[in-house]
C-alpha cells in the first residue's frame, strides 16, 4: 500500500510540476502569438491553472504527509547510518518548504482571484516561489527515492 501511495505521490507531483511551471513561464514570459511550441507554451491563460495547482499541492502534500512516517522510521535511519547527511538535510529543507507553501496557499488563491493591479507583483512572486518549492521538493524526493542507485548502496 505504501509503495502504491508513494508512486501516486510521485505521479501527482509530476502533474503539479508541469502545471506550476507552465503557469510560471506564462507569468514571467508571456506571449500573444501561439505560433510554434515555445510561444504556445508561453501564451496559456495563467489563471486557468490556479485551482488545479491548489488542489494538486494539497493532495501531494497530504499524501507526502501520510507516507512520511515510513521515511522517518526506516529511510532516514538507513541514510543516517550510511552517513548520507546531505540527503537527509535536503529532505529536512524540503519538509520546511512544503510547510511554508501550505501557509502561502490562501495568498496564492487571493492574488489570482481577480486581476487587481495592486497585487500584480505579489502574483508573480508567489507563483515563482511556488514553482521553486515544487521543483525543489520534486528533485529532492526523486533523488531520495533512488538514493541506493545514485550512491551504489
Amino acid at each position, binding site marked *: 500500500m505504501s509503495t502504491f501511495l508513494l508512486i501516486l505521490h510521485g505521479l501527482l507531483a509530476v502533474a503539479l510540476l508541469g502545471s506550476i511551471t507552465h503557469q510560471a513561464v506564462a507569468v514571467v514570459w508571456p506571449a500573444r502569438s501561439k505560433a510554434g511550441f515555445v510561444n504556445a507554451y508561453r501564451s496559456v491563460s495563467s489563471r486557468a491553472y490556479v485551482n488545479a495547482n491548489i488542489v494538486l499541492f494539497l493532495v501531494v502534500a497530504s499524501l507526502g*504527509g501520510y507516507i*512520511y*512516517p*515510513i521515511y*522517518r*522510521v526506516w529511510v*532516514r*535511519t538507513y541514510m543516517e547510518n550510511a*552517513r548520507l*547527511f*546531505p540527503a*537527509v*538535510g*535536503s529532505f*529536512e*529543507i524540503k*519538509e*520546511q*518548504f512544503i*510547510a*511554508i507553501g*501550505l*501557509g*502561502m496557499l*490562501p*495568498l496564492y488563491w*487571493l*492574488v489570482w482571484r481577480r486581476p487587481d493591479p*495592486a*497585487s500584480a*507583483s*505579489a502574483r508573480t*512572486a*508567489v507563483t515563482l*516561489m511556488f514553482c*521553486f*518549492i515544487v521543483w525543489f521538493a520534486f528533485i529532492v524526493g526523486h533523488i531520495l527515492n533512488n538514493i541506493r542507485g545514485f550512491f551504489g548502496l
Partner: protein
Amino acid sequence: MNNNQIEKIIPVFSAAFALIYIVSVEMNWALFTYHPKIKQWGWLVEPARDGPPMYWYGWLVTSTLGAAAASVIALPLLKNRPTPYWLGWVVPLLVILSVFYLFRDWFLR
C-alpha cells in the same frame, strides 16, 4: 467577517504562518508529537518512546493556529489600509532563505 476583511488578512496569515513555523521548528513548539514506530500520538513535545518522534505535524498545527490568531489581531490595524500583499510573500521568502542557513549543518558534516 466579510470578504474584504478576509482578503486583507490573508497576506498577514501567510507571513505569520511562515514566521511562526520557522520559530516552531527552531524552538520545537510542536502542539503534538507522533511516534510513528508505535503509531501513538502525544500532546506537546514528547521525547522518543520507541523509535524517532515526529514533530512536523505539530509544527504545522502550531503555525496554523498562531497565524490565524495573528491575522485576527491584525484586522483592526488594516481597517483603513490597502491589502498588504507584499507582506504575504516577502516574509515567506526571507524564511525560505533562512531555512538554507539553519539547516546548513547537514551539508557540513
